[in-house]
């Protein structure tokens, strides 16, 4: 394990709960905390490139305001602002009033949102400090953060490797202590897979649990905002803040939000843990498989009962996803036409010419490819064969989970079939890239919640992630099991050598 810099107190390595404790008891100031983060960013960001935009001046100003509140004689440790003075990073597809949101796309290079997303509005009400916006695969399409118009983000554990994607910037920023925690979004694994690749905790909540208002749409029936954190407790803290019904998102669920922090006790005795045979496939990385099997033993050791289960349609998830997600994307991305906002090409013969050229020059390769695939799948003559067929298979995949959850409480799988791969390794072959999401995609199709937590390292010191999947709106159980596992292991305490 690597010791943090000796010149400062290493405040950048803190978790939300620990930092909050120190701030509220006035052992540290928010200004000190933010300065520690910025000196860390100065040291490591050149290597990692986690951020698209860094909002230093605003952040320092906000930290001074936070310090004034924290040092006011009327301030008590029971203050409800759970993030007072805590600096977070936000994925660049989440809108914040007045702060550029690019989605790592040239087409939105200069887009300044005129309103706040619900999640960042709630974070602001809780007192957070915005550090900046993190890099991602363009419009969240990708598994490696290589599809960004603003350069690659690198894996803090091995700079020649991808950090995962599409929330690769957020995961790398958390893993390298360039922030205290971050938000990401997950359409097919985009929070969990980068969390696994970077050795941090990533939670994709149930579809509808967190408002999507102000999240730039990719595939609206699958997109969900979630958290990337240094430990499970931080994940629960952020969920308490960002979760819950929002009238501005008509797909957000109007059901009560539990106190997720209360779910964090280590007692998982008697809990039934399902191990799906379809997730232990041939060609899977041996070290990943071994780490997962070890993790299952640890969970059993805590009193849970492991049960073999089957999710028979797992093998069809990637095909289903790439029809549905691209179809929805082709419709959602029709709005980028060079008229209302974003990039517009210079010389145009007429309106149609402007649309065609603006979109050709504004979008990157993967986005174009998906718009093409989705437009094709929805086009006359192919709709039934592709789109409708995929919707039907989605029903079967969803039913797999409903059937499985009749006999168990939580499902345990690997998050990704391999640790982080090399930059450039899969760019030439989109299908191979898609298959790296094989273990995360079903979860989005079924709409259930899932969390990835660190569960080991490969022989060349790359993190391995364990995925826990729960019932609809039962984030509490996966958080509980994740917490129990984390508290009895040391993996989450390891830091990359930067």
């Amino acid at each position: 394990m690597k010791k943090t810099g000796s010149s400062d107190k290493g405040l950048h390595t803190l978790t939300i709960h620990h930092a909050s404790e120190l701030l509220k008891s006035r052992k540290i100031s928010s200004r000190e905390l933010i300065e520690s983060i910025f000196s860390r960013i100065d040291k490591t960001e050149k290597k990692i490139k986690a951020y698209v935009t860094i909002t230093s001046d605003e952040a320092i100003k906000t930290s001074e305001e936070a310090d004034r509140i924290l040092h006011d004689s009327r301030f008590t440790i029971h203050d409800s602002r759970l993030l007072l003075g805590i600096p977070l990073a936000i994925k660049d597809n989440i809108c914040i009033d007045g702060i550029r949101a690019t989605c790592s796309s040239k087409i939105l290079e200069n887009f300044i949102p005129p309103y706040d997303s619900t999640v960042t509005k709630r974070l602001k009400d809780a007192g957070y400090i915005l550090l900046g916006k993190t890099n991602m695969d363009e419009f969240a399409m990708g598994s490696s953060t290589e599809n960004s118009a603003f350069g690659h983000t690198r894996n803090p554990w091995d700079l020649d490797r991808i950090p995962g994607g599409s929330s690769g910037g957020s995961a790398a920023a958390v893993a390298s202590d360039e922030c205290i925690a971050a938000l990401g979004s997950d359409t097919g694994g985009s929070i969990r897979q980068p969390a696994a690749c970077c050795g941090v905790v990533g939670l994709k909540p149930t579809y509808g649990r967190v408002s999507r208002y102000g999240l730039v749409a990719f595939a609206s029936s699958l997109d969900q905002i979630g958290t990337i954190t240094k430990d499970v407790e931080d994940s629960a803290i952020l969920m308490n803040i960002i979760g819950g019904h929002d009238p501005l998102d008509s797909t957000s669920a109007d059901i009560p939000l539990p106190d997720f922090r209360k779910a964090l006790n280590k007692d998982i005795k008697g809990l039934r843990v399902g191990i799906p045979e379809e997730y232990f496939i041939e060609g899977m990385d041996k070290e990943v498989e071994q780490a997962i099997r070890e993790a299952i033993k640890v969970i059993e050791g805590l009193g849970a009962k492991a049960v073999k289960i089957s999710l028979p349609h797992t093998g069809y998830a990637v095909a289903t996803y790439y029809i549905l997600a691209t179809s929805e994307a082709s419709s959602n991305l029709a709005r980028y036409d060079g008229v209302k906002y974003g990039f517009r090409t210079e010389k145009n013969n007429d309106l149609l010419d402007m649309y065609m050229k603006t979109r050709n020059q504004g979008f990157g390769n993967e986005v174009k490819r998906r718009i093409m695939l989705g437009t094709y799948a929805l086009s006359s003559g192919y709709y039934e064969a592709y789109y409708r067929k995929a919707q039907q298979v989605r029903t079967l995949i969803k039913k797999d989970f409903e059937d499985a959850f009749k006999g168990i409480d939580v499902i345990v799988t690997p998050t990704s079939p391999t640790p982080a791969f090399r930059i450039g390794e899969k760019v030439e072959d989109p299908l191979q890239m898609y298959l790296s999401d094989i273990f995360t995609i079903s979860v989005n199709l079924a709409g259930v919640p899932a969390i990835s937590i660190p569960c080991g390292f490969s022989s060349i010191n790359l993190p391995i992630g364990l995925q826990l999947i729960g019932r609809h709106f039962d984030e509490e159980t996966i958080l509980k099991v994740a917490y129990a596992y984390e508290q009895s292991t040391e993996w989450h305490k390891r830091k990359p050598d930067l």
Partner: protein
Amino acid sequence: MAKITKKEVEHVSRLARLELSDEEKETFTKQLNNILTYVEKLNELDTKDVEPTSHVLQIQNIFKEDEIRESLPRERALSNAPDRTDEFYRVPKIIE
């Protein structure tokens, strides 16, 4: 057999309002064929009586009261426009 021809790729690119270079057309024809061949595996499943899922939550249309509420001020709505004139977005001439 090819699932999608270069000609179809050209047709789809027009539907998508997405100009493609000749090189892109070639690459996408090849790559889309690979992906569509992979997607063929969905046909192994009999889905004759299976209802399609468009959305995982059982939700109905959500209605709001027809009340006047604050909305985005015009100046802010126009603030990102690549080209504008007064209170309008400006685009290339549409009508001859």
